[in-house]
């Protein structure tokens, strides 16, 4: 008989007015990596919050069996005591404390109320060795990159004697090689008998490490697939996730390239604080009307810095260079001037930089172009509402009304609100920085379709992305960026992941 470590039976959870989970079943075998997939808003996080006791026993219907006994958690402490540990997407580390202090936060090695530091440090070293992190225990967490912080989180879980590790999109913010390391670590932990639940949007990760897959859609478990018993293709999973066949992950487009819209030349930018550090070197690129231009490169290669420095010098000091839009030199020294010149920038981090979360969809939609809905500085809310309603329908933002606060929307819908805002500013050229980060497959397809529509309308699109397949699938031309320089340019016809990588490595 198989050994089941966790079984969740017909879990139903309702919020006022919404049924978030509808008799969901989840069965995790001992010592396996179980992938939990589903679109954003499908209910994965809610299910995990039920499991970890964030929603205490009694606030949901159904049973949870852990190691064949029914459990009733009234808080995270209860579930952690049993060895169920969840690592959230937003890491729960204190950046001003050291690795050692973070590992045993709330779980300190105390003797009579006093922390035993030697013991703490030696245990930290053991745990860091287990996760393969070569850092001193006294290093401040804030000095580590996201990838290493992720490892610290896992070490923290190990410190609590974890039996079942839950990772919520652990690789969303990671580089390819850091992701690979993390997945290897999961396999290693599995060899030591630790089971894990992996929530992810990246299907290639699933095929790499998962033993079985549960797909959740609209608050219900749709299917459970055994990766060893059957041969599962990515298309199968996607079909279950979105509930429809998705023959092509990238919508097709006939490129109709027009005149050159934007021309950047001799673009040099220095670091905002360290004035002797040059961040961007002699960047030159062009964007034509109706063209989607990709910028590939690793994180830290200067892609976001390039976009931000172009957009009203929002990044950097001592910005030099020349930008022509439709042949004329434009002044992009402030954000209002950049917007006026016809530039739009969809930021990488939509919550921090893109949206006013406390405000409604309507307010966010018109924010970058308020004069267009006002006369003499007075806003006409009816027109404003009409405008946002139009965008809601055109971009298929799933929400009951435009009076919804954007913080209540899922990632994909939030991104559509950001796009609405910038479309309403009527730009000629849009710079999209990681436009599909943290968005599920179905919403990604919709965002791609919007991008194609923009190109068809004769706008120029610059697309920055860490996901190479996305660039290859969407762009007419791809610039490759590394360490603040453009190191190569590829046409759609002869671009490939290998070529991009080799340009980065050889530069």
């Amino acid at each position, binding site marked *: 008989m198989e050994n089941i470590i966790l079984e969740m039976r017909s879990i139903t959870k309702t919020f006022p007015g919404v049924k978030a989970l509808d008799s969901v079943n989840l069965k995790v075998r001992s010592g396996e990596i179980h992938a939990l997939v589903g679109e954003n808003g499908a209910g994965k996080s809610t299910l995990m919050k039920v499991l970890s006791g964030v929603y205490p026993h009694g606030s949901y219907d159904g049973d949870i069996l852990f190691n064949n006994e029914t459990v009733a958690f009234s808080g995270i402490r209860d579930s952690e005591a049993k060895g169920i540990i969840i690592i959230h997407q937003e890491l729960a580390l204190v950046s001003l404390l050291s690795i050692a202090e973070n590992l045993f936060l709330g779980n300190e090695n105390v003797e009579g109320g006093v922390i035993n530091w030697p013991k703490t440090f030696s245990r930290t070293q053991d745990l860091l060795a287990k996760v393969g992190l070569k850092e001193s225990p006294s290093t401040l967490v804030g000095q580590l990159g996201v990838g290493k912080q992720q490892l610290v989180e896992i070490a923290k879980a190990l410190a609590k004697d974890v039996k079942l590790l839950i990772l919520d999109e652990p690789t969303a913010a990671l580089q390819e090689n850091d992701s690979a390391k993390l997945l290897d670590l999961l396999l290693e932990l599995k060899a030591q008998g630790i089971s894990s639940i992996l929530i992810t949007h990246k299907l290639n990760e699933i095929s790499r490490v998962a033993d079985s897959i549960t797909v959740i859609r609209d608050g219900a478990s749709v299917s459970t697939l055994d990766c060893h018993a059957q041969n599962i293709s990515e298309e199968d999973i996607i079909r279950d996730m979105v509930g429809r066949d998705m023959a092509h992950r990238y919508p097709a487009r006939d490129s109709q390239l027009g005149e050159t819209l934007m021309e950047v030349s001799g673009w040099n930018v220095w670091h905002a604080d360290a004035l002797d550090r040059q961040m961007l070197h002699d960047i030159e690129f062009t964007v034509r009307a109706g063209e989607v231009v990709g910028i590939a490169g690793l994180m830290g290669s200067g892609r976001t810095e390039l976009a931000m420095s172009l957009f009203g010098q929002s990044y950097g000091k001592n910005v030099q260079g020349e930008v022509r839009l439709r042949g004329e030199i434009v002044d992009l020294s402030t954000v209002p001037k950049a917007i006026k010149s016809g530039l739009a920038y969809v930021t990488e981090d939509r919550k921090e*930089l893109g949206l006013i979360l*406390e405000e409604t969809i309507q307010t966010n939609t018109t*924010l970058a172009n308020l004069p267009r809905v006002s006369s003499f500085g007075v806003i006409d809310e009816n027109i404003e509402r009409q405008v946002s309603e139009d965008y809601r*329908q055109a971009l*298929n933002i*799933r929400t009951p009304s435009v009076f919804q606060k954007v913080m209540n929307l899922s990632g994909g819908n939030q991104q559509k609100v950001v796009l609405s805002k910038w479309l309403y500013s009527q730009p000629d050229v849009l710079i999209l920085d990681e436009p599909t980060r943290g968005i599920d497959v179905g919403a990604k397809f919709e965002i791609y379709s919007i991008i194609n529509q923009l190109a068809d309308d004769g706008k120029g699109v610059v697309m920055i992305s860490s996901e190479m397949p996305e660039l290859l699938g969407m762009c007419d031309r791809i610039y490759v960026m590394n360490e603040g320089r453009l190191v190569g340019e590829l046409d759609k016809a002869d671009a490939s992941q290998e070529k991009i990588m080799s340009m980065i490595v050889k530069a």
Partner: protein
Amino acid sequence: MTTKETSTAVQSAPSVTDYLKSHVRDYGMLIALVVIMGMFQFLTDGILMRPVNLTNLFLQNSYIIIMAIGMLLVIVAGHIDLSVGSVAGFIGALAAVMAVNYNLPTIVVVPVCLLVGLIIGGLQGYWIAYWKIPAFIVTLAGMLVFRGLTLTLLEGQSIGPFPESFQLLSTGFIPDVFGSGRPNITALVLGVIAASAIVFLAARSRARALKYGIQDEPFAFFIVKNALIAIAIIYLSYMLSTYRGLPNVLITMAVLIAIYTFITNSTTIGRRIYALGGNVKAAKLSGINTERLTFLTFANMGMLAALAGLIFAARLNTATPKAGFAFELDVIAAVFIGGASMTGGVGKVIGAVIGAFIMGVMNNGMSILGIGIDWQQVIKGLVLLAAVIFDVYNKQKAR
């Protein structure tokens, strides 16, 4: 598809109970004010709502309300201003020196004082907006500086009395142009005009919204709400008309409330202040000049603090070194009781006004009941805490 279903669902009006539930934050404090007034009306055997006391209530709280309007903008923008009490005191002293010591006419004193307030606010705003120095620090410094300057200006003594024309700022009443003054027909007429104007504007905006196919408020709710507002205003003006009529300061307040409600609700500048407080980085990247807006909110606060200082001095008929002491606390409390968020981006002018009235009615009611100043402080503190807890609780329930 699903979109169509939801879009049609939007157009039909929500039921009254649903509407009330989703707007509990908007109306909660208004209901609290009515309940508190009712309670004190009962406990004081009807003294609270007597015309004399009502008039006093407005005179006593006018300066807090005027500053609360400015403070609301500052807090919505994500900052705080601790200097307003000191600035109000300083301006009162300045006015006294100008009007009493130098015999300058009121028509000169008032604009100069407002301008000085504007400059003081602007100076503080400059450091906060362009140098990114925390408002708490800058205005804490301002609080000390202007308290000190008030003492210097007054040389440690009270200066007064003010000329009669200056006193009208606070203790003056609108003269009765229609009748003998008892009851004051002008007050009644103005009350009716104000009530009709409010109802007319509400009806017009509803009609316009309906033309766009938008119906947010249930019709029954709309009628009841506006009827209650109209009745309240007319009743109030009737009560005041049986005493001395409408105080000048009430008109000043009403005009300010109307102007700032309009600015915050309907203008691009108001909208941008909310955006700035909600997420300063996103606002900046949306092309909003966040520095200039921050600067302006503080300059505006300085001007309103100056106005409050003038009214307070006119009411006491002297400028004293202690004038304005700890006002900032009442003002900030009023804004938070009125539902503004500590982190910025949330809050309404009318909320701040209601918050100020809650504090004012409690002060007044407890004084009539003879409750000592010690317990008054305790109770006010608890009410502030309860109001914010209520707010947070509602927010969490909405999640």
